[in-house]
């Protein structure tokens, strides 16, 4: 039985296809259209999924959409009702879009799908799953657990903002929910807005900024803005927010509480105040998430916890849950945001709607195939495409490719690495990555300013061989999806001098904190990806070769894109990004490209090509 899941028309459109419960393909539309967080109907992603499965839409048994538009509209109407007459400006903005498009999503989907098949039985084959059930399904069904508690947290779905579900075999039931407007995701987004970053995409910048600050405002937030109960449920004082009735996240009262107006990204500098605010909201988030986790443990006694929803991308909070040892095991869906809802919707259709059995992989393995679920290209196709793009390259054998790339890394070069299938979810995991030497004290700055064209404070993440993770980090488990943060191991840290300790905030950036400074954040933390020989053998071989040369089983791994650009998908995308940034070496399949060999006239100005988050 083939089921196609869709997430679309909101943000991060995606498609996923499962065949007899096995995940065959999943991809985000933005990768094909090159529009970050593209919310359009995911025509390209659907086409790719069907091709990967070797079928047409006619062969698909069900199409499952990841949320219920009527329920969302009900939430909107009831919210307007309860706040009326306030909220008219918001009503005026929302209604035309809803009355012209959003309410008729079913018709829109049918119309768009006609491009794939004209006689599809929409009455019986188009299903809708609730938003948080889709998230919960994406977290539980591919997990390595037979039984687990499932916690989903995000901005808002239809009504739900936080849910607790219990999964057992092929059953999954939602037990408790928190409803709009009380939302941890919206709280984090409110502070993202307040610190001058883009809502819905700049949240990870707030998380990255937090370690530079002191959590001075944590108590103030807990006293005035968020009321957290013993079981982790919470209530937000709406008098500080504007998202129910207005067109911004926070209001004047919110600004007055913290004593500064909203930061304007293009005019106001990032100051210690903003870092302290970031540290404070991060501390509040961790406080709430830990309380929720403890509450779930107390109530269910579950040994395993699965997480999904945008807030589950807060890897610092995830790392805290793990280190507190509340559960024996935790598993986080790598596409925890709305794109992952496409996969969850398909899995919910298969296991919940059809009641078909689920097979747990066993041996602690999950069903995500390393999240390498996107498109790949044959070597001959790569060579043809690169030649057409004007690239000069050498085709190397497997061993020579690994050897030369590892040498380039050891020589502190920035390496573009495009190998095999593209990752599903927001993280690059060694399929579409830019790699660097973590031992280099200048690598973080070089990658941020010359390769990615983004703010210098932004941290980078390490990829480490799974077998060596415990020697380098305070983590002795799997983190294949870069969703756990843990400190660098004591023996690799470098103590700060007295003078260095006096530095504040961003001044600490230039002080090397360990023997792998490029991936060590100012608080000694790192967002870890463990690399496994069975899911990505070529990447594992590369890091092993780098270790052979340097003694270090860690490389810097950042997504293969510049700021504001979707991660590269095709060989042409990779070549364009290579020519538009200061990446020095590029490998695509077995093709090896050096910047100095390339035609100067093909260089691109990428620096200002994409808008900052």
């Amino acid at each position, binding site marked *: 039985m083939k089921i196609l899941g869709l997430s679309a028309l909101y943000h991060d459109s995606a498609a996923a296809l499962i065949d007899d419960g096995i995940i065959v393909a999943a991809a985000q539309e933005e990768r094909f259209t090159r529009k970050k967080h593209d919310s359009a109907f995911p025509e390209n992603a659907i086409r790719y999924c069907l091709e990967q499965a070797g079928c047409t839409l006619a062969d698909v048994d069900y199409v499952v959409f990841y949320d219920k538009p009527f329920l969302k509209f009900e939430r909107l109407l009831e919210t307007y009702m309860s706040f009326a007459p306030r909220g008219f400006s918001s009503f005026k903005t929302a*209604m035309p*879009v809803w009355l012209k498009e959003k309410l008729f999503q079913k018709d829109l989907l049918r119309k768009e799908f006609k491009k794939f098949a004209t006689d599809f039985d929409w009455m019986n084959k188009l299903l809708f799953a609730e938003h948080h059930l889709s998230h919960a399904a994406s977290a539980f069904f591919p997990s390595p657990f037979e039984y687990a508690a499932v916690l989903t947290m995000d901005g808002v779905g239809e009504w739900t903002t936080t849910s607790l579900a219990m999964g057992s075999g092929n059953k999954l039931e939602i037990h408790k929910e928190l409803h709009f407007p009380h939302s941890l995701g919206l709280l984090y987004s409110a502070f993202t807005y307040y610190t001058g970053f883009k809502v819905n995409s700049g949240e990870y910048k707030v998380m990255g900024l937090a370690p530079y600050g002191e959590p001075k405002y944590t108590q103030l937030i807990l006293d005035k803005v968020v009321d957290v109960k013993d079981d982790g449920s919470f209530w937000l004082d709406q008098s500080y927010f504007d998202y129910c009735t207005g067109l911004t996240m926070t209001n004047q009262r919110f600004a007055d509480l913290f004593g500064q107006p909203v930061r304007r990204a293009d005019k106001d500098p990032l100051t210690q105040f903003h870092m302290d605010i970031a540290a404070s909201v991060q501390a509040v988030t961790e406080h709430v998430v830990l309380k929720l986790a403890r509450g779930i443990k107390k109530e269910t006694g579950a040994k395993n916890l699965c997480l999904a929803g945008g807030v589950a991308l807060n890897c610092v909070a995830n790392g805290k849950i793990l280190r507190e040892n509340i559960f024996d095991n935790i598993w986080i869906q790598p596409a925890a945001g709305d794109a992952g809802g496409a996969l969850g919707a398909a899995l919910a259709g298969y296991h919940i709607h059809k009641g078909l059995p689920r097979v747990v992989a066993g041996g602690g393995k999950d069903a995500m195939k390393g999240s390498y679920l996107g498109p790949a290209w044959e070597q001959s196709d790569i060579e043809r495409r690169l030649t057409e793009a004007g690239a000069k390259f050498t085709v190397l054998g497997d061993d020579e490719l690994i050897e030369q790339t590892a040498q380039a890394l050891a020589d502190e070069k920035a390496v573009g690495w495009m190998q095999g299938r593209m990752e599903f979810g927001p993280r690059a995991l060694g399929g579409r990555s830019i790699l660097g030497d973590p031992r280099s004290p200048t690598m973080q700055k070089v990658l941020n300013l010359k390769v990615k064209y983004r703010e210098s404070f932004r941290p980078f993440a390490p990829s480490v061989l799974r077998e060596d993770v415990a020697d380098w980090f305070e983590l002795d488990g799997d983190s294949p999806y870069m969703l756990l943060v843990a400190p660098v191991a004591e023996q690799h840290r470098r103590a700060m001098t007295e003078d260095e300790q006096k530095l504040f905030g961003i001044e600490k950036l230039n002080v090397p904190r360990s023997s792998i400074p490029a991936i060590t954040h100012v608080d000694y933390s790192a967002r870890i990806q463990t690399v496994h020989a069975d899911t990505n053998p070529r990447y594992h071989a590369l890091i092993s070769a780098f270790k052979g040369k340097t003694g270090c089983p860690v490389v810097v791994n950042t997504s293969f894109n510049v700021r504001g650009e979707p991660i590269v998908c095709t060989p042409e995308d990779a070549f364009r990004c290579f020519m538009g940034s200061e990446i020095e070496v590029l490998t695509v399949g077995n093709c090896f490209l050096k910047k100095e060999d390339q035609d100067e006239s093909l260089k691109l100005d990428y620096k200002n090509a994409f808008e900052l988050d």
Partner: protein
Amino acid sequence: MSFLLELVAFLRARKKYWLLPILVMMVLFGGLIVLSQGSAVAPFIYTLF
């Protein structure tokens, strides 16, 4: 037509018939707003869509 049938089915399933008059009023009111402007393109606000 199928849209209206689905809407009624939805209100029945949710036991929210009381929403119907409000819905009618809002749709009329919203319809006026729609007619008074040409484009349905709106700024992205997290909670509205």
